[in-house]
């Protein structure tokens, strides 16, 4: 059972840095730039901030960020573990802190030089004997070293089990790219691709090819949360957290849960979905648009099933009906996603989901967006949230 913290915290500011392949600045610099942009968006000062939430993977100490920004003291800091599984984990931490009164203005941020600094594609390795290093040791000697390779292993079996084909993977990658074409801050601004180019792109880890994979990116994203009372006095329309949850499932490993009875599945996301729907009192029919974590194209499909937009094995047909497009059932990743905007570990997705509810997306659907879904990475302990309009 999960405590109900519906509508206890409200997103009042969002900010992205420029996204690039070589920021030329420190990750600390990226972090404070994104946070300052989000504070300006909200109409708040650094001195208003009394809490912070980020990833265990983030290199920026909260106190360094606070000092650089010129915050005062902090009452709360909390970190979420498991890579991109922490995207909405930061939101979860911030919402809990505000709901319990432990903090009043909490910043969620993620800043990384993911291309010019440490690259995810360089794989895992290490001489340190932690439980985490020992875990990777079951895969490293065989060459299963990169996020693409782990996800490929799930994808191959999931496609085998469901009969979903590359047509659906293409539709996810392509519909996402079409949104990025309109986004000046996206890597692929103004650059579309067609099926022939998709098919001709080099293979990364079979069946994942180049356009099925996100891009290693430099950049930062931040959002600011506060109480509903305070949110009503601020500059932007408030975006309330209707429901938020973190979840891991039995026999969970980090990206390599290969030991379950049926491993081509993401039961952790099903748990998160159930709890978010329960907390918010909403159903899939209430969700108007979504930002679904897309480090790789197939993981969007699995999440559509986990959040009950369609049944098991039906996500291929769901997307091939145009559901993810601007005029579709569920306009998704309208910023261009991590596939085509930038890979900021899902926190750029929190920014975009907020904008969708505000009505400020660059690709704002013509229909009313009362509720937007936003999710964290999969294959790992994960989470998600539904955002809505503050009364």
């Amino acid at each position, binding site marked *: 059972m999960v405590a109900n913290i519906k509508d206890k915290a409200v997103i009042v500011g969002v900010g992205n840095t420029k996204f690039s392949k070589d920021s030329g600045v420190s990750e600390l610099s990226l972090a404070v730039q994104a946070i300052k942009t989000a504070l300006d968006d909200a109409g708040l000062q650094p001195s208003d901030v009394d809490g912070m939430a980020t990833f265990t993977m983030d290199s920026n100490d909260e106190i360094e960020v606070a000092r650089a920004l010129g915050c005062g003291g902090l009452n709360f800091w909390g970190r979420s573990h498991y890579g991109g599984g922490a995207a909405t984990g930061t939101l979860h931490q911030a919402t809990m802190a505000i709901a319990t009164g432990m903090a009043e203005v909490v910043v969620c941020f993620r800043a990384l030089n993911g291309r010019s600094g440490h690259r995810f594609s360089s794989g895992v390795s290490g001489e340190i004997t932690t439980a985490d290093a*020992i875990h990777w040791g079951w*895969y490293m*000697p065989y*060459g*299963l070293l990169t996020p693409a390779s782990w996800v490929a292993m799930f994808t191959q079996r999931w496609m085998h089990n469901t009969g979903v084909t590359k047509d659906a993977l293409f539709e996810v990658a392509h519909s996402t790219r079409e949104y990025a074409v309109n986004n000046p801050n996206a890597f692929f601004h103004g650059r579309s691709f067609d099926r022939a180019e998709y098919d001709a792109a080099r*293979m*990364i880890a079979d*069946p994942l090819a180049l356009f099925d994979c996100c891009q290693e990116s430099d950049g930062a994203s931040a959002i600011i949360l506060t109480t509903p009372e305070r949110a009503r006095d601020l500059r932007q329309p408030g975006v309330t957290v209707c429901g938020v949850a973190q979840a891991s499932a039995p026999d969970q490993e980090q990206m390599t849960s*290969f030991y379950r009875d049926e*491993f081509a599945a993401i039961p952790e996301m099903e748990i998160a979905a159930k709890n978010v729907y329960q907390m918010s009192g909403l159903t899939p029919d209430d969700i108007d648009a979504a930002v679904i974590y897309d480090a790789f194209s197939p993981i969007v499909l699995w999440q559509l099933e986990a959040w009950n937009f369609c049944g098991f094995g039906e996500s291929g047909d769901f997307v091939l009906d145009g559901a993810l497009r601007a005029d579709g059932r569920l306009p998704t990743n309208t910023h261009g996603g991590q596939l085509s905007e930038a890979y900021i570990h899902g926190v750029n997705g929190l920014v975009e989901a907020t904008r969708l509810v505000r009505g400020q997306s660059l690709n704002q659907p013509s229909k009313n967006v009362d509720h937007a879904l936003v999710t964290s990475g999969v294959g790992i302990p994960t989470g998600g949230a539904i955002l809505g309009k503050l009364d």
Partner: protein
Amino acid sequence: MTPEEQNAFEEKIYAYSGAQVCARTPAADAVNPAMIRHWTEVMGDNNPAYTNEEWSASSARGKTIAPAAMLYVWNQEGYTVTTGRASDPQTDMVELFNEYGFTGVLGTNVTQEYFREVSPGDTVHVEMVIDNLSERKSTARGPGYFFETLATFTDQNNEKIGTQRFRVLKFIPQEQPAAAAEEKLAVPSRIASPRGHDNGWWWDACDNGQVLIQRCKNCQTLRHPPRPMCGECQSMEWDSIESSLDGEVLSYTELHHPKIPGYQYPLICAVIKLREGTNIVSNVVGCEPSDVYIGMRLKGKVEQVDEKNTLPQFYPA
């Protein structure tokens, strides 16, 4: 170079931005069938619109045309370039780069735009300027600057045919440190697992040719990868059984990119269900990548795969 020296150098270099390399000049020869034929033969381009006069006469154009990509051919200087080239702002700028140690040169990319077709009898004129001098960049080749030459091509009526941007990197070549050169001689090996309390015994057995499966002494449940406690009954007492290495593919992936030093490609990783009931990740070897499928039967062998690693490897059964 100190920041002051760099500023002084950049001031000189950036003065060339927009400089005219050559004013509008006609090609020595008009567009002609012989050069078109030579070019299309070398390129292997059999389009009749370029060389077949009879076919072209009955086409919408009514005549042959030159391939658009020949744009840059018509105004090439030819043999006289070997006997020395007159200086122009581009050669002066390159000389300035060289004086400051930016002796490396790398043509990085060419972009052409086409506006009109030309046919035999037309005369192509070219004019060229220096454009897009970059800020100082750190590249894998060394620190340097990119610049472009922008060539604009027009016909005898001064109608624009096309443009070409040619991008060049001028850089300070980096010497390979001697130590790095020596390191390249060492044969890389696969990345081995670290060994700790909870897994060292498994890898030690593997070194001795055995693949073991941890077993709870209390409830007999098998578990892999090893853990210190039984998740079924919470017993910390365990022993192990030796696997038969009879297995079946549950999923697989062929790793294409990036290629990690120490690993042999093509490389296939698979999740394999062992006859004993536990799953293991390993490599499928001894067959083509295209031969692997979900449900494929395998037989494993423990093999020394390189200087540092002994691993189970699975072959088609």
